[in-house]
């Protein structure tokens, strides 16, 4: 049995039907993750134990466990409790798409929060002092000085994290979603041509990872235009 390049080409458009869900998952999870990351970051650097402690537990848990297990806990695990099925959140948790966004977003949020924290710690302390000396308030210093610089410092690491989230969306197929991987697995179960179809799926992911990489590199270059070249 040999690899049939024609079948790879033929299956690409079929698998691409799952692209919409994959991209929506990626976009929503990434945005949700960034939001969570910012909240977590603020909690962590607040200097108040009752804020920073839960934030650290959250980060520790989501970085220390497999995403697949996190998805299963949220999708299959939560409905174990009757009160969740009766709660106003159930219309959301009922949907596999929403469960995946929550799981992927929570996971990404934990990582992005650490990335942003690295960025914040990387901001020269002198700059916030200059802000203080100029009379800027603490929120003003954070918004106008620390955050813009921290974001630039975080972008290279974030670019990797974004691609990780893209790859993690493939796990959505384990909770019934027909994303690229879900469609590919279904096709394989019907055609028994695992090589061609999964390779076609991998090509789609690689293409999209490459696009994301280029886009984020452009963003990074833009954000870094004030940094001296060389030296």
């Amino acid at each position, binding site marked *: 049995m040999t690899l049939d390049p024609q079948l790879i080409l033929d299956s690409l458009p079929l698998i691409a039907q799952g692209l919409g869900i994959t991209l929506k998952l990626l976009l929503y999870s990434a945005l949700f993750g960034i939001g969570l990351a910012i909240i977590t970051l603020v909690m962590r650097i607040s200097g108040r134990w009752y804020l920073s402690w839960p934030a650290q537990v959250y980060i520790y848990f989501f970085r220390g466990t497999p995403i697949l297990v996190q998805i299963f806990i949220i999708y299959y695990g939560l409905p174990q409790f009757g009160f969740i099925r009766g709660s106003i959140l159930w219309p959301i948790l009922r949907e596999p798409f929403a469960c995946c966004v929550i799981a992927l977003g929570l996971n990404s949020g934990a990582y992005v929060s650490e990335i942003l924290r690295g960025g914040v710690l990387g901001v020269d302390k*002198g700059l916030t002092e200059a802000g203080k000396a*100029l009379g800027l*308030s603490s929120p003003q210093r954070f918004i*106008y000085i620390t955050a813009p*610089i921290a974001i630039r410092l975080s972008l290279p690491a974030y670019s990797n994290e974004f691609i990780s989230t893209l790859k993690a969306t493939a796990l959505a197929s384990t909770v019934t979603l027909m994303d690229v991987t879900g469609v590919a697995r279904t096709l394989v179960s019907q055609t028994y041509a695992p090589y061609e179809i999964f390779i076609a799926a991998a090509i789609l992911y690689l293409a999209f990872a490459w696009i994301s990489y280029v886009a984020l590199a452009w963003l990074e270059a833009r954000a870094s235009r004030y940094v001296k070249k060389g030296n």
Partner: protein
Amino acid sequence: MSGAQPVIVLDKVCKNFGAFRALINVSLSVSKGEKLVVCGPSGSGKSTMIRCINRLEEHDGGHIIVNGHELTKDSRNIDAVRREVGMVFQNFNLFPHLTVIKNLMLAPRLVRHKNKDEARAVAMKYLERVRIPNQADKYPSQLSGGQQQRVAIARALCMNPEIMLFDEPTSALDPEMIAEVLDVMTDLARDGMTMVCVTHEMGFARSVADKIVFMDAGEIVEAATPEAFFTKPQTERARQFLSQILAH
């Protein structure tokens, strides 16, 4: 002490970093318009003292009163002091992500609530004063060190401060750039600004300072006019310091 009212008063100020005693019962007063130069070996507490004046460091004991506001935990007093006191750092600390003009406009807009045009006008005025108006739209990284430090001085001036603090403003500069910064500082002194400078530039101290404070090991060892300090220092420590610094 001159007869003018003091705008900065330090009274038995102490500051510890863990077990290390950075400031020990430092008392000092600076009157309006006075130019004070602080010198001493590294680790003597000069920077710590100047940073206490706008509360970049919190002092552990004693009192600091700036322009009538005592610095305590009360953030309203801290804000009031910082609005009235400008500061220039050794490493310039320009905001790298903002152009020169935006560096200057940031605080007036956020703290003084000036509109864009007012802030820009003020910024240009001071850029001209430090003689680099043509660099307004560049990023700090595109300027030389001397230019950056002059931008930093202009940035502080944009807040229209009554007092200026300089924390070793020339020690991160290449020798050929020191003069251009000192020139701007001398201009400022001539205009009657109240200034506290931590510096090793003894030429500048001799020509500009009204009073020189020599610190060592967290204490003020000597306080005198430049004339007296340079010609006949009172203590052995000051003599040693002077011989080291003037030997070069």
